[in-house]
Structure formats: C-alpha cells, structure tokens
C-alpha cells in the first residue's frame, strides 16, 4: 500500500510515451481518483476558509492579535508538506485527517491576510453610512464589509485552491488516492508506464485551471460592481 523504499525500475524505451488505450481502459478509475482529489481539495479549502474567517474576524476586532496570527500562519506555511504529513502519521496514521490538516493550514496565511486587507479596504464612508443606518457590528461585517471584500477574498481563495490541488498529489504517498495515485502508479508497475503519469499530471493542471476559472466567474457573478473598478 505504501511507497516502496527501493528505487523504481527503469523505463522501457520501446514503449510509446502515451497510450489512449490506457485512458479508455481506466476511465472508471480516472473518475474515481478525480472525485477523491476534489474531496480532499474541497475539505481542505472548506476547513481553511472557516478557520480563516473566524481568525480574521477576531483580528479585525482586536488589532493586536493580527501580527500573532499572521506570524503563526506564516510559520505553518513554511513547513514542507512531506514533513507535515510525517509529523502527523504517528498520531493519526495514514488517514484522511493526516492528509487534510496540512493542506488546510497552508491556506490560512493567504486567506486570513486577504480577508483582513479586503475588509480594511472598505471605504470609511460606507462603513459610517451603515452604522448610521443602525447596522449592528455583526450585520456590518456580514452584510457590508465581507461582501465588499469579496474580490480580494476570492483572489486569495483562487491562489489557495490552485496550490492545494497541486499539493493533493503528494497525499498519494499516504495512500490517499487522488490524481497522485496515477503519478505514483506509473513508476510502481513492473515496467514503468508513462500513460498514468501523464494523465495524473495533465488532469491535475486542468483541474487547477478549471477551479481557478470557476472561482473567477463566481466572483464576477457575486460582485458585479468590482468589474467596473478594473
């Protein structure tokens, strides 16, 4: 189940670089791995976003808290992914949690930073007008400040999503499946097979681009006023 410690076998140079046949034969497996990849990405982003919203709201209320939170998120961001997985394996084993926790923590730095700067960019007049209309601090945050910060928040979310999709391939070392499964499988068969490697890499890039475009379209739909600014 886990990575072999020995160096993989060398490739056979007579084999074609890519065989469509492989894709046809493995269509079901490709869909399954794609689903696993999306599940890991969505969970990590979801957990990261909820945590970031909570921490960013705290930072906006208590300004002194912000440098500490950014410092801690920055330190977590520096930790190499393989190292983070390695620290969690003895505690949580080769599990979904071991894979998702580091992925989620990597999103914190950019998400918290973008939520806080996005909200701080909201013009003072807008905020004062809302307060004058009787908005409570909570309604001010959720109905005025966060919607106006949306373009900046989504910009952060796009970076986080693209980075996470690439990193999910590494979780195949934990036996988590996803598209990284194919990348690894390509060198673990008795004779290395390039088709799954190429499928894994290409689909991972395609997925990253697709999610990036979808988030961008979502932002344009949810914050149409931002289009005019740019």
């Amino acid at each position: 189940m886990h990575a072999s410690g020995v160096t993989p076998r060398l490739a056979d140079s007579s084999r074609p670089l890519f065989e469509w046949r492989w894709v046809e034969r493995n269509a079901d497996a490709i869909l399954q791995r794609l689903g696993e990849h999306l599940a890991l990405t969505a969970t990590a982003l979801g957990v990261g976003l909820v945590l970031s919203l909570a921490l960013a709201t705290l930072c906006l209320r208590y300004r002194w808290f912000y440098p500490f939170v950014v410092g801690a998120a920055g330190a977590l961001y520096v930790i190499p992914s393989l190292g983070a997985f390695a620290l969690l394996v003895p505690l949580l084993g080769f599990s979904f949690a071991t894979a998702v926790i580091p992925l989620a923590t990597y999103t914190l730095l950019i998400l918290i930073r973008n939520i806080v700067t996005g909200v701080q960019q909201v013009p003072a007049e807008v905020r004062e007008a809302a307060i004058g209309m009787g908005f409570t601090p909570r309604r001010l945050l959720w109905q005025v400040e966060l919607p106006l910060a949306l373009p900046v928040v989504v910009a952060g979310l796009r970076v986080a999503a693209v980075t996470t999709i690439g990193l999910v391939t590494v979780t195949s070392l934990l036996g988590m499946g996803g598209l990284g499964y194919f990348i690894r499988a390509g060198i673990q068969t008795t004779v290395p097979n390039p088709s799954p490697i190429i499928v894994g890499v290409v689909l991972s890039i395609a997925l990253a681009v697709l999610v990036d475009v979808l988030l961008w379209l979502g932002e344009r739909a949810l914050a149409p006023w931002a289009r005019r600014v740019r």
Partner: protein
Amino acid sequence: MSFFAQLSQWLADPNRWSWTDPAGLPYRTVQHLWFSALALVIAMVLTVPLALWLAHYRRGQFVASSAVNIGRAIPSFGLIILFWFLASRWGANTDFWPLLLALVALALPPLFTNTYAGVVQLEQEVVDAARGTGYREWQIMLRVELPLASPVIVAAARVAFLQLVATVAIGAIVNDGGGLGRYIVDGFALGEQGHGEIFGGGVAVVLLALICEGVFAVLTKLATPRGLALQQARRSS
C-alpha cells in the same frame, strides 16, 4: 514495537550522526541543502538577468504576471516523477538530473515574476534621474534598478528556496537524493513499523525549513541597501 521504542532505536543507530554514511542526518542535511541551493542558483542565473532586462524595457508584462500562476498549477510531485521517467527512458543518470531539472523548473516562475515586479514597481523618477545624470541603460539596470530591487529579489529567492527545500524531500520517492525526505519515504514503506523513522525525518525536515527561513530573514535585512533602509525607517517613524 511502540512508537517511542522505534524512535529511540532510530536515533540510536550508530550511523545516524555520520557526515559520510547515507543513513546519517548530517549527510542527508548537507545533501538536502546542496540540492536546494544548486537549483536556486541555477534558477536565479536563468531568471534574474532576463527579468531585469525585460522589466527595464517593460517587455513581456503578460508573461511575467502569469508565470507564477502557471507555475502554481503544476504539481511538483508529478513533475519529479515525469522527469525521472523521461531520464530513465533515455538512459540518462536518474539520481541527479531529473530531480535537479524539476527543482529548477519549479523555481523559475516565482523568481521571474517577483524580480520583474520588483523592478517595475520602482519609482520612475529615480531611473529618470540616473538617466539625466548620464547613466547608460545597462548602468541603470546594474547600478540603480538591481540594488533597489534587491530586497524584492531576496524575498523571491526566500520563497523559492523554501519551496525547493519542501520539494527535495518529495524527490526521495524516485532517487537516492531527496535529502532528509529519504527517512520519511523509507518510513512510509515500513508502514506501522516505520512511525519512528517517519517522525524523526519529519522533525528534521521541518527544523531545516524553519532554520532556512530564519537565515533568509537575516539575509533580507543585509540585502537592503543603506539608502533604502534609511528611507523606509524615515517613512515608518
């Protein structure tokens, strides 16, 4: 065997502290840093002069702004394995080149984008003043833009280097390089019995990354030209 027994047995290996034995932490640390630093230097030689030149003439703005996004979408894990596969297919050395090329390829986009942005964001008056004083274009690039953009370039190198340190570890899956990642990948292969080795390797990798980050924080301070540091200090006070 319990986790702590595994860990203490792993730490007690007589070769664990050797500089010359492949099982040694010092040996693996040096290997890890050597690979990361070599890739960084090659990537910087390839990008910084080109980015300086293009940014000076404001050429290739689109490439510069999109390079980092494209780079981000490419899974480093996939690139390492793909390069390893291609090298083995062509009968090339699989221990060194595939990993090095993958590392260089990954470091290029952020270095290029950030160096370019660092030059473009400089105040145009400074460049005009230099030109008015009689500086030639290459002198402006080397004596005005390069020093003024150096804090940004060092910051870009810092981001790239940390990414390289993280990626070298992943490289352990295909070759005997991989530095400290070796322990983690070998430990994964042992399953339950490998937890001690996995954890030991994990701590070593994380410590190495945090120390490198600290060293780069100092370097960033040193790379800031005195004039720029004074200006920043005046602005913030």
